[in-house]
């Protein structure tokens, strides 16, 4: 229903303070949400990194900043390694790798809220449209 609560939760979860008022008042212009809300007619959804098993962004990354952890299934991105060549932006078929151009120009994407523990967008969704679950493939490996 495109309430955009996930977007707010994402921003706050990736702020320094992790507090909604502080994040919006002090950090907001420098925050990039890691998900995108799309709407067309009656259909709407929030879309963020799918953490693909054969991730095209990992294949395309020339620095090794984009990595797939085969054990957990997490596709992670290392800001310090990234040089902002945008090969990942070119490669992601979901279009969910964003460009953080506010300070150092680097790619940015969903990190499953590594800092917080569980994805804030999922916790914030009032309609349970966003679900966080382990994929069958990862379960098998673990």
């Amino acid at each position, binding site marked *: 229903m495109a309430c955009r609560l996930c977007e707010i939760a994402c921003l706050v979860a990736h702020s320094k303070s992790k507090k909604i008022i502080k994040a919006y008042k002090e950090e907001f212009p420098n925050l990039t949400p890691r998900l995108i809300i799309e709407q067309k007619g009656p259909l709407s959804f929030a879309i963020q990194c799918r953490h693909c098993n054969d991730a095209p962004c990992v294949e*395309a990354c020339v620095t090794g900043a984009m990595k797939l952890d085969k054990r957990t299934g997490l596709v992670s991105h290392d800001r310090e390694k990234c040089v902002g060549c945008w090969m990942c932006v070119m490669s992601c078929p979901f279009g969910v790798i964003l460009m953080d151009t506010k300070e150092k120009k680097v790619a940015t994407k969903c990190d499953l809220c590594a800092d917080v523990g569980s994805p804030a967008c999922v916790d914030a969704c009032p309609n349970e449209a966003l679900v966080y679950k382990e994929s069958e493939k990862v379960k098998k490996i673990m």
Partner: protein
Amino acid sequence: MKSSEKIVIIGSSVAAISAIETIREKNKNLLITVITKDKDLFYSRPLISHINLTDGQRYYRDKNFFRKNNVNLVFGEAIIVKNDSVILKNRKNIKFSKLLLAVGGKPIIPDVKGINGKNVFTLTTKVDADNIKKFCKNKKHVVVIGCGMIGIKAAEFLKCLGLDVSIVELMNRPFASVLDDKSGKIIADEIKKHTKLILNNSVSEIKENQCILKNGEKILADIVICAIGVVPNTDIAEKSGIKVNCGIAVDSQMRTSKKNVYATGDCVESLDILKCEKRPLPIWPIAFRQGAVAGSNIIGGDARYDGSFVRNSVNVFGLPLITLGLSNEKAGEEIVNSSEKLKVYKKVIVKDGKIIGAIFIGDISRAGIFTGMIKDGIDVSNFKNEIFSENFGYIYVPKEFRSKEVVPIEI
């Protein structure tokens, strides 16, 4: 594969690394030997022209990658494959059960008077970049021949090193193989803010301190970078009687014409799914995927590589540029969105309902959605006029192609 078997890989860049990672995921014990000319391992080739990188950025994998993956290393130049051995320049003989050629590309050297001079360099390895850095101390003027991917990176590199750069390009625009006239002009204008750009011209003679151009003009040049392009390195394959067309010929399992010999990456020819013909597709992501396919098949798997298309992303003095597929072919309907003021130019070419090429300058956000649509051959006829609308996104990908996890049920 039996544990006594021995895998030998020639080359140590991305195709080789990807193959090693794939093999080691399934088998920790098979003997793997890498033969390489590169003394400095695991640096990322596309980044050799960047100065001021941290070691963390410069190296694609960490320095202990081979040790951690239990890989033997042989420094040397492989010359020929005879029966089941690779023979090196120093006459050393290395036996293999399965061999992978990941020898990459080699720079095209034009037949120009003076091209073998001490002041002429190519720029495809870290050694090249280091040699250029050393040579250009106290030098002032550089001429870069060719304004493609390597040419632009060379120009940025030498400008950062403090030299006065002139780029000479044979065609009427930069990146002529992938840009149309209009986008070529935008990029040319951007380049001209930073360096001299001479179009529709070529170098006919190189002297110690100057280049003479085709039209007789002379330009100062203490150093010349030859950046016309690269071709597949087929030297070893040709000497060894392995079939070569536009590159080393391989099947969809990355097998060459010689038994137990595989090849991947910039040295092979691959199926271009848009042109429906085999040709070199020398780009990083393709080398990575092919390396994984070869790695898997070398240890008895049945992975396939079904072809791809050329695509690239480059920052031209900070202006982002992405091209996908046949971006410079007048082969279909062109949907364009551009703003000179914002330095934005976006174009998608649609043929028989499908996207066959795209150009993005300035605004490259979500360009990957188009990469996905080209790969899946999605019919865009119904929404082609909305492609550059503000609401355009993954939501336009037809239901049957969308990931089920993104939109499980449509209401």
